[in-house]
C-alpha cells in the first residue's frame, strides 16, 4: 500500500474530489500558483485553473461569506483559512450564517462546504500561529468539526467532509503535515463523520485525544505499559457529531478516563467529554475523570523553553495515566 504524508493525503484528496465533481472549488489566500503556504493545494491551480482555484483577497469573512453564496448557488466550495488563528474575522459568517442557514430557512437552504484550517502548536508559531480553536465551533449546532490525525483518516475524512451536505470545519494539525506518514490506499474509501477510532486497545485506563495529541496519547500508552498499565487510546477524529458510544463503551470497560487536548483547559473541548462521562458512565467510574490540557495563558508563547512549557507531551500524559491507574 502506498505510504504518504498527512499533507500529501490532503492534497491528493482535494485533487481527486475536484476531478470527480466539477462543482468542487477551492478558494483562499495564496491557494493558487503558490499552492498554499503549506502547499496543501499545490498543483491544483495548474490542473483546474483560476476558475476553480481562486486566490482571494486577504479577507477571511469574504472567503467564508462568499463560500456560503457559492454553495447556495450549486457549487461545493472548499475554502482554506491560512491559519486557524485567523478564522475569527469569519466567525460571524461561520456561526451566524453557515451554521444556521438550514435551520433558519426550515430546511429550504443549506451550505455544504468544507472549511480547511491548519491549527495547533509545537511548531514555533507563537500566539498567533499555534492556536487550537475547535472549542469555539464544537459548541455550535449546525456545524460539523473534524480533526484527523493520520494520513489515512485525513483522506477518508476529507472525502466525507467534501461530500457532506452541511458545513464542516476540517482542522489539520500543522505539526503532523510532514512529520507523520502512513499507509493510504488508492481506493475510493471514506471514513464516515461521527466515528471515533480505537487506535490501541487496553483494559485499565482510556485515553481520549485528537490531532497531535492522538499521537502523544499512543506514546504515553507505550510509556505506561512499562509500568504494567494497559491503556486504551481513542482518537476522537470527529468532534461534532461525537461518537459517544465508542467513548462510553471504552470507559465502562476501563472505569478510568484521561482526556487530552492541546488547547487551554478551561472550557475546552475535553470538558464536554468529561461531562458526558460524568453523566452517562458515572456508575462505572473508578476514579476522577482527568484532563491533561494546556495552561491558562492566552496563547502559545514563542521561545523554545516557553513553548515546551505550554505543550502537552507524552510524559505529562503518562504521568496522569499512572496517577489515575493508582487511584
Amino acid at each position, binding site marked *: 500500500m502506498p505510504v504518504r504524508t498527512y499533507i500529501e493525503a490532503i492534497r491528493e484528496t482535494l485533487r481527486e474530489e475536484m476531478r470527480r465533481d466539477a462543482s468542487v*472549488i477551492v478558494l483562499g489566500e495564496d491557494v493558487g500558483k503558490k499552492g498554499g503556504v503549506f502547499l496543501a493545494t499545490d498543483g491544483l491551480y495548474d490542473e483546474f485553473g483560476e*476558475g*476553480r482555484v481562486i486566490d*482571494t*483577497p486577504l*479577507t477571511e*469573512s*469574504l472567503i*467564508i*461569506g*462568499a*463560500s*456560503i*453564496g*457559492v*454553495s*447556495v*448557488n*450549486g*457549487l461545493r466550495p472548499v475554502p482554506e483559512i491560512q491559519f486557524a488563528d485567523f478564522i475569527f*474575522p469569519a466567525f*460571524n*459568517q461561520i456561526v*451566524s*450564517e453557515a451554521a*444556521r*442557514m*438550514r*435551520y*433558519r*430557512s*426550515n*430546511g*429550504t*437552504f*443549506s451550505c455544504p462546504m468544507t472549511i480547511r484550517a491548519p491549527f495547533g502548536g509545537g511548531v514555533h508559531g507563537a500566539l498567533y500561529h499555534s492556536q487550537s480553536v475547535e472549542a469555539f465551533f464544537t459548541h455550535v*449546532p*449546525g456545524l*460539523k468539526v473534524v480533526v484527523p490525525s493520520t494520513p489515512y483518516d485525513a483522506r477518508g475524512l476529507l472525502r466525507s467532509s467534501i461530500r*457532506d*451536505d*452541511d458545513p464542516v470545519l476540517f482542522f489539520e494539525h500543522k505539526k503532523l503535515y510532514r512529520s507523520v506518514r502512513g499507509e493510504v490506499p488508492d481506493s475510493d474509501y471514506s471514513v464516515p463523520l461521527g466515528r471515533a477510532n480505537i487506535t490501541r486497545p487496553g483494559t485499565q485506563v482510556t485515553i481520549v485525544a485528537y490531532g497531535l495529541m492522538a499521537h502523544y496519547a499512543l506514546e504515553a500508552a507505550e510509556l505506561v505499559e512499562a509500568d504494567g498499565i494497559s491503556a486504551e487510546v481513542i482518537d476522537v477524529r470527529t468532534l461534532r457529531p461525537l461518537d459517544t458510544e465508542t467513548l462510553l463503551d471504552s470507559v465502562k470497560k476501563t472505569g478510568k478516563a484521561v482526556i487530552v487536548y492541546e488547547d487551554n483547559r478551561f472550557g475546552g473541548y475535553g470538558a464536554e467529554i468529561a461531562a458526558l462521562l460524568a453523566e452517562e458512565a458515572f456508575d462505572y467510574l473508578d476514579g476522577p475523570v482527568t484532563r491533561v490540557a494546556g495552561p491558562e495563558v492566552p496563547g502559545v508563547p514563542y521561545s523554545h523553553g516557553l513553548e515546551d512549557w505550554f505543550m502537552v507531551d507524552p510524559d505529562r500524559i503518562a504521568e496522569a495515566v499512572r496517577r489515575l491507574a493508582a487511584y
Partner: protein
Amino acid sequence: MATTAADARAAVGDAPAGDLAAKVGLTDQQLLDMYALIALTRAVDERMWILNRAGKVPFVISGQGHEGAQVGLAFELRKGHDWMVPFYRSVASVLTFGMTAREIMLAQFARSIDPSSGGRQMPGHYGAARHNILSTSSPVATQVLHAVGIALAAKIRGIDQVVMTSLGEGASNQGDFHEGLNFAGIHRLPVVTVVENNGYAISVPARLQTAVEDVADRAGGYAMPGVVVDGADVLACYRAGREAIRRARAGEGPTLIEAKVTRLTGHSSDDQQTKYRSAEELASGKDRDPLPRFRSQLRDAGVLDDEHESTIAAEIKAAVDDATDWAEAQPEPDPATAERHVYAGDPPDPSAGQPGAG
C-alpha cells in the same frame, strides 16, 4: 471607472411628461403593475402594524417609505432565474420578485408553512427557495458576501444570473460590505448592491455613520459605478436598476446604487422615533413618500385614472384581508418539529411546502 454621484444623479433625472411609458421603455400596464406593487406593499405593511398594535404579532420591522425604490430597482430582474438577497426592509423587493401577500403574512404570524423560516425567525427575515430569495439573518451586511458568492457561482457555472442585494446605509459601514464590494469589483461579478439610505441607523443619523455624504462614493474604491438615485422617484429607480442589471448580465460587472429614501415609521415596533427626530423632520419625510408621488405622476401622465385606482385599491384590500385571515388560520409550528433541519437528513417536516400560499 466610477461615475461621480453628481453625474449619476443627472443621468437618472426626472422622467419628462408626455408618453410616460414609452419614454421610460415600459408599457402602461407595467407602470400600473409597479404602482400596484407599491400600493400592495404599503397595504401589507400597514396591516402588519395594525396587527402589532392589536397584540396579534409581537414584532414588526418593515419598509414604509422604501417601497418605490425597491419596486423600481428590482422590476427588471428575471423572476425564478436571478437572485434576490434581501434585508428586513425588503417587503416590496420580495413582493416584486415573486413572494405573495400570503407568504409575507405567514411570516408575520410565524406559521408552520411560512416559506421564509417556518416560524423560526422574527418577521422581516424573508427567504423563499422557490423564488431564489436567500434566507435573511439579523446581523447586518453579512448578506452582501452571500450575494457576491452567488454571483461568483453564476459566473463559474456560466449562467447569466444577476444578483441583487440590499442593505441600509448604517450597515454599509460593516466590513462585510467592503469585503464584498472589493471582491465583486476584482472579478467583475454580476451583482447589484443597493444601499437604501433612509438617513438613520435606528437613531444614529447618517452624518455620524459615514464620513462621506453619499455612500455611492465608496464605489470608487472598488472600481464600479456608484449611482445615487432619488428613492422617492420610482422611474428614476427603475432606470438605475435596469442599467445596473443590464451591465451585470452583459458581464460588465457590479454596480453600487444608493437610493435616498425616507423611513416613514419607527425603526421597528420597538422604537419610539420622536425621541430623536423632530416633528418638522417627520412631517417633511411625508413629502418624500413614493406612493402619492407615483400616483400623481401616473395620473398626470394619464396612465392611472379613477377607475384603475379604485379597481387596484379594491383588489389590494381583498388581497390583504385574504392574506391576513388565511395566514392567521394556518397552524403554528409544532414544538415536536423544533429539532428538524439542524443537519441534512434530520427528519423532514411533513407539513413543509406551501400549499395555497401562491
